[in-house]
């Protein structure tokens, strides 16, 4: 049974010769370094690179905390409640900036969320196949536009439109709410909110799209089989399942809006005041840093600015961590990555 059926082995002519030569030359190879030392060195270098990532975060925390100590000792918690931002007299209160950051970001979300979810729903549920690619490409393109170009466009195109058409219209129709009163400068909280909304839509809608796609097809089919219209199917089977993830995407957008600097600085008016009307100019934490940091003379001034930076840092970290957790719980471990 074993080897009887097979033919006699055929030895090829040149083979043993080549084999001999290889044998001879291979001795140096066999004796050559087995790379144990090199492996160790390589391992340490690579480990060092990974350590640098941790070190960067530690560095950020260390610098922000240590350099804001002067301001912290001078004002304590009152720093975050004070409304007076007076570099001349070395009095610093950060409330106007906190207010401006929150209001502009929330306004941005109010505008952006329905639009983002609408785009996401359209792309995943209603869009004809040939349109899907170009559509997602263009939304990604929106995310690639630098902030300063958004700002440039906002100053010269958005603001005049607001000043000449939108703001008078809003004042006439909704002025009674108190949100749309005061002179229509164009520049102000409303402009900041709108440009921020445009900037966070790509983020929210791309996460929403990811989360909507993960909803299993059989959920949709179950609803349709019961006789639901397409909108009902989306509402019942898709949106409900994806709710946590979409909220996560919204919070991620919030995180981006909170830290957004250039476009906001260019249209918010840069006045450290708290006002009810959205027409009024305002100031955000990121904007005051952008405008005043390079000229800050005096240690307390700089320290106060850095304390604002620290606050901004902490807030965005918490918001982003919350967002990632919510998205992760829906998509199971694929981290949310806003494409460039």
């Amino acid at each position: 049974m074993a080897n009887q059926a097979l033919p006699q082995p055929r030895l090829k002519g040149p083979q043993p010769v080549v084999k001999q030569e290889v044998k001879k030359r291979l001795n140096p190879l066999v004796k050559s370094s087995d790379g144990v030392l090199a492996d160790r060195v390589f391992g340490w270098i690579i480990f060092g690179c990974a350590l640098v990532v941790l070190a960067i975060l530690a560095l950020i925390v260390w610098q922000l905390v240590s350099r804001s100590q002067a301001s912290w000792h001078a004002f304590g918690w009152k720093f975050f409640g004070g409304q007076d931002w007076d570099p001349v007299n070395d009095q610093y209160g950060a409330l106007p900036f906190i207010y401006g950051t929150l209001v502009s970001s929330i306004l941005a979300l109010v505008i952006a969320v329905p639009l983002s979810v609408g785009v996401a729903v359209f792309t995943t549920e209603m869009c004809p196949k040939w349109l899907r690619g170009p559509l997602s490409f263009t939304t990604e393109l929106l995310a690639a536009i630098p902030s300063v170009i958004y700002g440039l466009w906002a100053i010269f195109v958005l603001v005049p439109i607001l000043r000449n058409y939108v703001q008078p219209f809003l004042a006439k129709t909704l002025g009674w709410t108190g949100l749309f009163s005061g002179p229509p400068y164009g520049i102000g909280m409303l402009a900041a909110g709108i440009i921020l909304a445009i900037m966070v839509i790509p983020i929210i809608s791309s996460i929403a799209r990811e989360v909507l796609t993960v909803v299993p097809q059989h959920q949709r089919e179950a609803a349709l089989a019961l006789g639901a219209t397409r909108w009902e199917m989306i509402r019942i089977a898709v949106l409900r399942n994806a709710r946590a993830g979409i909220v996560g995407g919204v919070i991620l957008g919030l995180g981006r809006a909170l830290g957004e600097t250039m476009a906001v600085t260019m249209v918010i008016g840069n006045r450290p005041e708290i006002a009810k009307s959205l027409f009024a100019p305002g100031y955000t934490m990121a904007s005051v840093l952008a405008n005043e940091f390079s000229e800050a003379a005096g240690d307390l001034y700089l320290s106060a600015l850095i304390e604002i930076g620290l606050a901004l840092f902490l807030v965005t970290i918490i918001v982003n961590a919350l967002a990632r957790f919510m998205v992760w719980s829906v998509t199971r471990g694929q981290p949310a990555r806003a494409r460039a």
Partner: protein
Amino acid sequence: MGVGIQVEHVNAWYGKSQALHDINLKIEANHATALIGPSGCGKSTFIRCLNRMHETTPDARVEGKVRIGDLDAYNGTSPTQLRRRIGMVFQKPNPFPTMSIYDNVAAGLKLNGYRDRKHLDEIVEGSLKSSALWDEVKDNIHKKSGASLSGGQQQRLCIARALAVAPEVLLMDEPCSALDPISTGKIEELIFELKAQYTIVIVTHNMQQAARVAEYTGFFLLGRMIEYDKTEKIFTNPSDKRTEDYITGRFG
């Protein structure tokens, strides 16, 4: 020329679970030895203990003694040095996709610092001839990538790659299980020719293949080696009832 392998009291673990229990074995030089047994019985684990590949799995552990020729595999040498004297062919052909056929065959030498270009050409040609691939690719060895060949050709390329470093032992872990019958036949012929110069250990779950190709056969079951003897004896007159049950297809 091939060398014999002496295995004494080898035990192996994946984390907490023990995969091999007290394996003792003497593999003859310049012969082909087949290891058979049902899935999960430890034959792949065993073969990977011979060239210390088992320890590349996280949490894996080996105890015992393995002597390759006169070399103590676990105490006398680093894993890297050991593996240069033992060639391995895997279940699924795995040529390096970014390299040409030539570079694939030469990889074991070039990546280990061998620089002699003139002799590299000869070695590559010799290895490709030894693995019966030369005639099919000789016009393209620099241009075609390793991954552009058919399954059977890729496996022969992997064999050539393993042979290029002139090992003394060739380990083959189910080398034909991913291939069609014609390619399988070609490779079995190859093994038959190669055993004149190398010691071959081949893991297979195809008993007919073991019968065709190997002089010695070892039967593994649940991490233990039940029986090890001349192939003829195993297949015609096994000593252990479990071997007989497996051979006759009562389980497996």
